[in-house]
């Protein structure tokens, strides 16, 4: 690998095994999105499990709040190369949402207010690895960070953690979402540095 003359490490962080390749540790919380932040009144908000499932499900905001809560503390990794350690969220495990649901397809499109979608294989959403969160750091999740609720799939690049999420649409085959259609990787594993199509 070529050495860049005069370039030196400036950050005295020793993230060890927790920082995926090509990432750096960020103390702030930058955001990435494609357009304006949508506003959805909570009395109009629902979360739906739909598509290829045996029976569709839908929760109102109030019903959603009554579901079993979890408070995962996780590291997150944005494709724009920042990572943030030990972020604490509050929300509902996707396992809980799928309790009693029979999926008839192995692929999911998460859909959001504003028309944003992202695709994930079902296996990336289950097994205690994905949540629909409405709290961050002990507070209600702010709109610019995806509130009232966003998906949280911390083992994949953060664009998979769809902001303003409103439901999961099950399918029998994979269907690329918004960023995935625009050149970003279909799966987005930060440890394999799957940033773009072709990585």
């Amino acid at each position, binding site marked *: 690998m*070529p050495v860049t003359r005069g370039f030196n490490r400036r950050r005295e962080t020793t993230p060890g095994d927790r920082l995926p390749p090509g990432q750096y540790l960020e103390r*702030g919380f930058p955001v990435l999105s494609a357009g304006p932040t949508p506003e959805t009144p909570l009395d109009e908000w629902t979360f739906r499990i739909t598509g290829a499932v045996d029976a569709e499900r839908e929760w109102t905001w109030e019903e959603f709040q009554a579901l079993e809560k979890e408070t995962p503390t996780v590291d997150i990794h944005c494709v724009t190369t920042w990572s943030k350690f030990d972020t604490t969220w509050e929300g509902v495990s996707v396992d809980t949402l799928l309790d009693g649901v029979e999926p008839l397809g192995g692929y999911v499109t998460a859909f959001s207010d504003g028309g944003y979608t992202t695709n994930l294989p079902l296996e990336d959403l289950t097994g205690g690895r994905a949540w629909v969160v409405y709290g961050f750091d002990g507070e209600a999740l702010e709109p*610019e960070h995806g509130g009232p609720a966003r998906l949280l799939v911390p083992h994949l690049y953060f664009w998979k953690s769809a902001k303003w999420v409103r439901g999961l649409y099950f399918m029998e085959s994979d269907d690329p979402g918004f960023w995935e259609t625009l050149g970003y990787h279909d799966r987005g594993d930060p440890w394999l540095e799957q940033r773009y199509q072709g990585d």
Partner: protein
Amino acid sequence: MSSVIRATDWREATVAAIAPETPRAATLTLDVPGWDGHRAGQHVDVRLTAEDGYRAQRSYSIASAPEDGRPMITVEELFDGEVSPWFVQVAAEGDMFEVRGPFGGWFVWDASETQPIMLIAGGSGLVPLMSMLRHRRNAGSQVPAKLLVSAREADDVLYARELETIGVDVVLTYTRRAPRDWTGYTRRVDRAMLQETAILGGRTYICGPTTFVETVADHLVALGEPPANIRTERFGGG
């Protein structure tokens, strides 16, 4: 074995030229083996390697037009940054680092498009918008276009001279200190300013720091712009 270079392949780029833009920003013209052009608004990923093997990677918008051939990036030095100071203070002709790209298929504009375009920049968020304006000029596009730039002071305005002849109306607002004889805006972009200056009803591109982009996009939606016509790009980090 295929010898085709893909956008995702890291390549060793050489700094062919470097020019200061402002006291805190520089434009680098790059020689990138196998560079196959880009679309206005796209970015590259760069990777710098220190003597001890430490590597740092960032994304930078391309400032040049697709017609310019060699890609140019403009980098603004960020306070406490790790990578941006190297580009602004250390980099010299002949220096090498790794590049891959171009990437991005959303925050892009092509001269074949016919909608009016409103471009709104906060600080160095002007870089990808400049690529679009240069592309518009080079292609002889006649689509109505306008640029609104928010800068702290005159020293922060990238491409100031070129903007005078870029062929679109340019509106500047200074948020910290205006030049002595300035009679234009001297405040942050707000709803009234957008109402007075923005081309509404076409497509809008907004690029800048997160809060800038967030605020401007919210105001435009409040003014009745369909969210689907507003494309944003934000940056943060060092």
